[in-house]
């Protein structure tokens, strides 16, 4: 199913359930207690709610946030911007592009450029390998004749009114060279759109930079929930939607039961390098968590993730290949072994063999 059809179906179901969807409406602020400030063509409104769920998503880091020096000409995009530019507004892109990044979304940028009639000279990554799946890389090379330049860092953009060239550095040799392009696309480098969350004082997870939540999307503030790629930048739309549905179920449960609904009474999950973040950020041993999402900042041949709490191994699980910028997950079964009154649970990569977990408790109830 295509993205637009998938979302149209979700919209249809939301409307059928009685939800109101206010488009062209911006939440400018919300306060604890459920008051939400809105701006739209009909004016400024404040609505009161029993619960707020934030699903403000994630964006790609633009050139400035990546501290790429040089001139500031036109012709510099992120993938998201390029896609709106091309598919929604049909604006002209350029003729010769370079894509910064070599993860899933980078290949998507390449396809968008192709659709716009732009030649992509290469995808670049600072890492030693691309981070997508092999078929994408092979297709790029053989069908589209787009190479992937590994160990390559963008160190400058030149051009007066339009990009004229980029300066690239080979990380291994330190050698620099220029390539003429009129278009640069920054792909990936996701960061949650956490402005509202931060302004509302939600605790932010230092790994994901999204609000810290449990599997039910409960944040550090009572009656405020979060879901989607704001929490785990980024998963594919279907994963985000499924996780969102889980959060909605928990939210409804909390509202019906009227029980305490912030994530205060939880144990934190934390990661050890090269693992860079984990979600859920907090857990309760009674929560049933099918899978725990992880990211790594480096390639690693180890595939076994061990969960420790206060020096005790509480569980372990194997992941798929440990590749940066790619979704990783492990079974959440270790969570039932966590001591609610213990310290944070640390997830780390270990050698190939599964370590024995100490005295697994049987799941209560």
């Amino acid at each position, binding site marked *: 199913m295509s993205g637009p059809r998938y979302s149209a179906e979700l919209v249809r179901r939301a409307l059928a359930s009685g939800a109101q969807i206010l488009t062209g409406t*911006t939440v400018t602020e919300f306060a604890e207690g459920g008051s939400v400030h809105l701006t739209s063509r009909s004016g400024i409104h404040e609505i009161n709610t029993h619960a707020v769920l934030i699903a403000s998503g994630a964006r790609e880091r*633009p050139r400035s946030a990546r501290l790429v020096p040089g001139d500031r000409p036109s012709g510099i995009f992120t993938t998201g911007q390029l896609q709106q530019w091309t598919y929604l507004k049909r604006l*002209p892109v350029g003729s010769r592009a370079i894509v910064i990044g070599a993860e899933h979304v980078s290949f998507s940028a390449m396809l968008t450029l192709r659709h716009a009639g732009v030649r992509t000279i290469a995808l670049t990554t600072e890492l030693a390998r691309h981070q997508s799946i092999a078929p994408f890389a092979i297709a790029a090379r053989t069908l589209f004749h787009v190479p992937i330049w590994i160990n390559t860092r963008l160190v400058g953009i030149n051009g007066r009114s339009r990009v004229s060239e980029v300066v690239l550095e080979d990380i291994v040799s330190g050698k620099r060279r220029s390539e003429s392009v009129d278009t640069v696309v920054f792909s990936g480098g996701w960061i949650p759109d956490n402005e509202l969350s931060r302004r509302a004082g939600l605790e932010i997870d230092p790994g994901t930079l999204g609000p810290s939540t449990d599997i039910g999307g409960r944040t550090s503030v009572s009656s405020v929930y979060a879901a989607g790629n704001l929490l785990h930048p980024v998963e594919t739309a279907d994963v985000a939607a499924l996780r969102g549905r889980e959060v909605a179920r928990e939210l409804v449960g909390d509202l019906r039961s009227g029980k305490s609904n912030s994530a205060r009474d939880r144990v934190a999950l934390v990661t050890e390098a090269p693992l860079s973040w984990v979600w859920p950020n907090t857990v309760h041993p009674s929560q049933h968590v099918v899978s725990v999402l992880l990211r790594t900042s480096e390639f690693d041949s180890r595939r076994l993730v061990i969960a420790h709490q206060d020096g005790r191994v509480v569980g372990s699980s194997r992941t798929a290949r440990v590749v940066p910028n790619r979704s990783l997950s492990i079974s959440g079964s270790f969570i039932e072994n966590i001591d609610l009154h213990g310290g944070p649970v640390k997830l780390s990569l270990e050698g190939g063999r599964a370590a024995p977990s100490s005295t697994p408790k049987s799941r209560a109830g």
Partner: protein
Amino acid sequence: MSGVNVDAPAYDVAIIGAGVVGCAIARQLARYELSVVVLERSSDVGNGTSKANTAILHTGFDCVPGSLESSLVKRGYELLGAYADEAGIAVERTGGLLVAWDEEQSEALPGLQEKASKNGYHQTRILSTEEVLNREVNLGQGVRGGLEVPGESIICPWSTVLAYAREAISVGVTFAFNTEVTGVVFNEDGQCLTTPLGNVRSSWLINAAGLFSGQVDGLCDHDDFKVTPRRGELIVFDKLSRGLISSIILPVPTSRTKGVLVAPTVYGNLLLGPTADDIDDPFATATTEQGIARLLDAGRKVLPRLLDEEVTALYAGLRAATDHQDYQIRSHPNQSYVCVGGIRSTGLTASMAIAEYVVALLVSDGLELIEGGPLPKVPNMSPLGEMQLRRYEDGDAIAVDAEYGSIICHCERVTRGEIRDACTGDLPARDIGALRRRTRAMNGRCQGFYCAAEVVSLLAELSAATPATLTGLTE
């Protein structure tokens, strides 16, 4: 834009340069019965050295005492402060705090206080380390006291230039863009200026060409000063960093280093910079790896938590530094020509005082000022400051015009109505940079990830420019 009279009777006054100084002079002359033309080489007002500065409204406490700059900054501070209130230009009276980080700097504070007094500014106060840290709790380790300068403020530099120009236009001052003056011939009646439009004649000539003021002075057969562009690189941090400081954190200049500042902006960001490198090319506004690294090192020391925040923009501005300590304002009565050169980073603050001073020079050289015509109208600028009531939060404005309720740039909360306003009326935006400076659109943390396609489409539609031209793909 009204057309320029070419090969026709002379304008009373021609001004070369539509930066903050040229526009302030045009505004000042607009209240008299004079025909005035402003000739600008680029495509917009305030598009050179005026657009990329630290946006500080200076008290002038650290000027060279007794200099022309000192007196004009002091006077300009008062004039612009009052004008900003009248025109709705964002100003925040944040105050400034010079922070000493070692003994040498600490020992320099009394001298700076004395210098401030010589500049007629008596409100400074030396603070203990404890007082500094009570005021600014997020400063890094190693503070050794400070000097408070309560009057230092921040201002919206873009609206300032635009307000001056719009006020001048309201009584018929002509602005010509993409009009570089490449030759000046002096004759009995004044000057004949060579431009791409043809010859423009004037009775009086004012050189307010900023980075090019030395060149224009050369066209007028003078060799009084040389402009060396001084590049200042700056880093703009995300709005979520704004709460880290309350006032402008200034460095204590010593014999060895001038240091960098951390300043809030009226748009709600923090600014770190500037570097200071003398260069040759007046177009070289690229940032550099070394410059950024230097700024981050300095920022890490002054405000360690700043480095955890996202960077919203990197830019470099060029200041018109000269081989002289002071502004280079000179009249040449026999040529009916006034050179307003070497206006450095204080020029934004001093602009209205410079205009007063220049008009006084013209009068003493024989220009006759006749009052009695229609008075220029102080424009009502679009509120770009975070402390102002922005359109998106102005229920009354939205009730009258629903376009102010339609937020199009989410990071900066810019509405469709503001984009429309910027593209219509006097001095409409005709390119992306001009639109950014009039609205803040696309200046936020996502740099157009969400809104650029829509904003650029709208600009193309309203300005009748093609998207390819707007994005530099075609001329």
